[in-house]
């Protein structure tokens, strides 16, 4: 049997020493932990007195010893008197290896130590030492076994990293790619395939590199735990979190990144924000509208009284009062449409032919002067049905069509088309050849009171109303626009929505 050295740190135990010797172990003794650094003989097991450990962190102790000796084992004891006997017996009887595996030797025990545990540590450590000493057959078997375990673990790792619907990237401290899964490769738009060990700066998108450089800097300088950022890459919004990777001793070994695709979530948030904003504006407007009724009714009453008065015969006065009256009525009608906009309306949903709804809408507007020089073209797909309140649908298209007519200043081609989309929903397109929607106002055209029309030509509520109704019916409203080519798209459900 090869020699197995047992290092006792701060422990003087004559009985144990002699036992060790009789079992083929060589006890080596040092007084304190710094002295461990001077031991040159290969060590299989270290036993350290509890009082030497004191308040030091176990992890620090372990690392200290690991660095000093290169031996994989450390066991810290308190009460050697009680365990030495049983420890030796167990070692002799060889009853330990079926209980504990090799890695147990790396374990760390502090405080009131379990007897079995300690003996296991000792034994496995000794075996490890013996392997190092040239017991080739055991070593060979061990390596084979470990290779199998490694293969299995590698496969498992690949399955995990390939299956999760998040991107996973690990880079080492110098910035080389250590691991990247398929999701990350796809979402970071990396086309090169063999990129293991390649510096990330060579293959990652510029925006992501900036974030990573920044994160690495912060992790090193400020000891930050993790960094997070939303980065948009070709329409997709990615949320990238970078974590510092540590070894056992909390020393950085690299950086780990988790990448999530939050595009849908972001879009929903944007919509929620818009509807929240509309709701707030709605509440505010309803309050204003209520308050305005009082003064308006007084102005109206005044002007009516003035107009009725018989001794007025100045045409000038009459003209002015008539104007007051007309303008007040106009204000009142704005208030009424505002309140219609904010008030919840009970609806009676049903299935309707979308073409009929568009035609009905046209009948409300075509007689107006502004449509005199507008050509209306229709391309309807046969038999398309939409589900909801007919009058609400009419309101949607009325607002969009009137907006289109205004954009064309009464001259051009208005094209209405309907088709079913890939999800079986109905897509209505309202196309006009008008001035187009300026890029600077694109984000605001669905806001209440936003209008590009001259003062007095529009309340700015039309598209906001349309937007609100489409939203309430579970549909979508959006547009594309360039000069002479603007299309509003309305996607509507053809069937009953769940929960309605």
């Amino acid at each position: 049997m090869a020699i197995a050295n047992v290092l006792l740190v701060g422990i003087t135990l004559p009985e144990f020493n002699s036992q060790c010797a009789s079992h083929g172990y060589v006890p080596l003794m040092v007084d304190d932990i710094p002295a461990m650094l001077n031991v040159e003989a290969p060590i299989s097991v270290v036993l350290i007195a509890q009082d030497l450990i004191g308040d030091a962190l176990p992890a620090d102790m372990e690392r200290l010893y690991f660095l000093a000796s290169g031996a994989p084992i450390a066991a810290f004891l308190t009460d050697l008197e009680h365990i030495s006997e049983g420890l030796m017996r167990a070692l002799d009887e060889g009853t330990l290896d079926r209980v504990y595996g090799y890695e147990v030797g790396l374990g760390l025990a502090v405080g009131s130590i379990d007897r079995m545990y300690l003996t296991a540590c000792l034994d496995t450590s000794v075996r490890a030492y013996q392997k190092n000493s040239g017991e080739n057959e055991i070593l060979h078997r061990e390596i084979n076994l470990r290779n199998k375990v490694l293969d299995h673990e590698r496969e498992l790792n690949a399955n995990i990293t390939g299956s999760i619907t998040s991107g996973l990237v690990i880079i080492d401290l110098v910035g080389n790619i250590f691991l990247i899964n398929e999701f990350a490769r796809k979402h970071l738009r990396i086309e090169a395939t063999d990129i293991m060990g390649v510096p990330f700066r060579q293959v990652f998108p510029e925006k992501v590199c900036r974030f990573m450089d920044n994160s690495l800097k912060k992790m090193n300088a400020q000891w930050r735990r993790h960094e997070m950022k939303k980065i948009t890459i070709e329409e997709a919004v990615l949320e990238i979190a970078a974590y510092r990777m540590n070894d056992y001793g909390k020393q950085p070994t690299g950086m780990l990144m988790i990448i999530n695709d939050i595009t849908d979530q972001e879009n929903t948030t944007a919509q929620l924000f818009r509807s929240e904003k509309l709701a707030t504006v709605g509440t505010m407007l309803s309050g204003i509208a209520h308050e305005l009724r009082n003064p308006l009714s007084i102005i109206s009453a005044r002007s009516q009284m003035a107009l009725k008065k018989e001794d007025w015969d100045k045409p000038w006065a009459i003209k002015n009062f008539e104007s007051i009256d007309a303008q007040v009525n106009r204000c009142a009608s704005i208030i009424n449409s505002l309140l219609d906009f904010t008030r919840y309306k009970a609806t009676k949903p049903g299935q309707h032919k979308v073409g009929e709804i568009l035609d009905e809408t046209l009948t409300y507007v075509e007689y107006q002067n502004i449509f005199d020089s507008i050509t209306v073209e229709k391309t309807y797909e046969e038999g398309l049905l939409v589900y909801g309140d007919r009058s609400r649908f009419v309101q949607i298209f009325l607002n969009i069509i009137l907006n289109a007519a205004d954009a064309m200043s009464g001259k051009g081609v208005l094209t209405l088309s309907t088709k079913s989309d890939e999800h079986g929903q109905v897509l209505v397109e309202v196309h006009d050849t008008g001035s187009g929607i300026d890029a600077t106002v694109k984000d605001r055209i669905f806001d209440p009171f936003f209008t590009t029309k001259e003062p007095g030509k529009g309340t700015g509520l039309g598209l906001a109303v349309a937007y609100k109704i489409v939203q309430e019916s579970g549909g979508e409203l959006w547009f594309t626009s360039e000069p002479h080519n603007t299309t509003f798209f309305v996607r509507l459900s053809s069937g009953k929505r769940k929960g309605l």
Partner: protein
Amino acid sequence: MNEKILLVDDEIDFLDVLSEFLMDEGYHVSCARDGNEALDKLSKEKFDLLLSDINMPGMKGFELIKESGRLYPATKTALITAYDVRDYLYMAKHYGIGNIITKTTPFNFEEVRLLVKNILTEDVFGLDRYMHGEIHSAKIRSTNEIEGIIQKIVADMPDTRHKRKFRQVLNEIIINAVYYGARQERGDRKELWPQVVELTPSEEILIQWGTDEEKTGVAVRDQKGILTKEEVLYWLERNTTKGDNGVSIGLLDEHGKGLFISRETIDRFIMNVKKGSKTEIVMLNYNEGLYDGYRPLWIHEF
């Protein structure tokens, strides 16, 4: 005439213009800026009508009317507001108030004139007082005649956006007048109402209808007078008060909804009741756009 009216509103401009109008109509008008000033004036002088704004600083219109009713029961009362009357139906029921005038734009002087006159004179029956044009009338002597009369009325109506709805309301109101108002069948057992009934002379229903330059009107009158203000306010309130589940608590009621829906559908839904003698429901619909907005509560019961 020369009845005395006490007008209460914190809005001095409104007091000014309405009092001028009412004085032009021949009334004596006093004004008060709030509830306390009103009570003070009521204690010094006898008024025939107290017409008060609802939302004022300090004492609200409802409290003022309650106090006035306790101290001066002979003084008739009505409220006026620029807000949505639906929001006040609960209060109206609680305080037993049948008349809430709305400050509309354009301001509806004609309506204020009529309401004030009706309250003061208690001479309220007949469509002619609401209309400027020719009035047609017919009597329903059998349930067989209902559909024919409705067709006749609808044929005379101008083509407005309300026509179809008006027809539905007419159907509801006339059938209720026949079965519930005149024959006193149970409102909650409509399935048991007989299909065809010949009405006795005292069960006959008088229908009046007509149009003028700004509106269409129909009046339906029975000869029993069993409908009460309390009952009407009860049904209206049940259908405007929302329960925990967000729908009106009256939604599942066996009846009462027709009344509410009719009031919601028709621009002016007026109920006149002379207890034990006659009930009249007057429905006025303005032509497109006129007096859109809030509707007054208009129930006369005496």
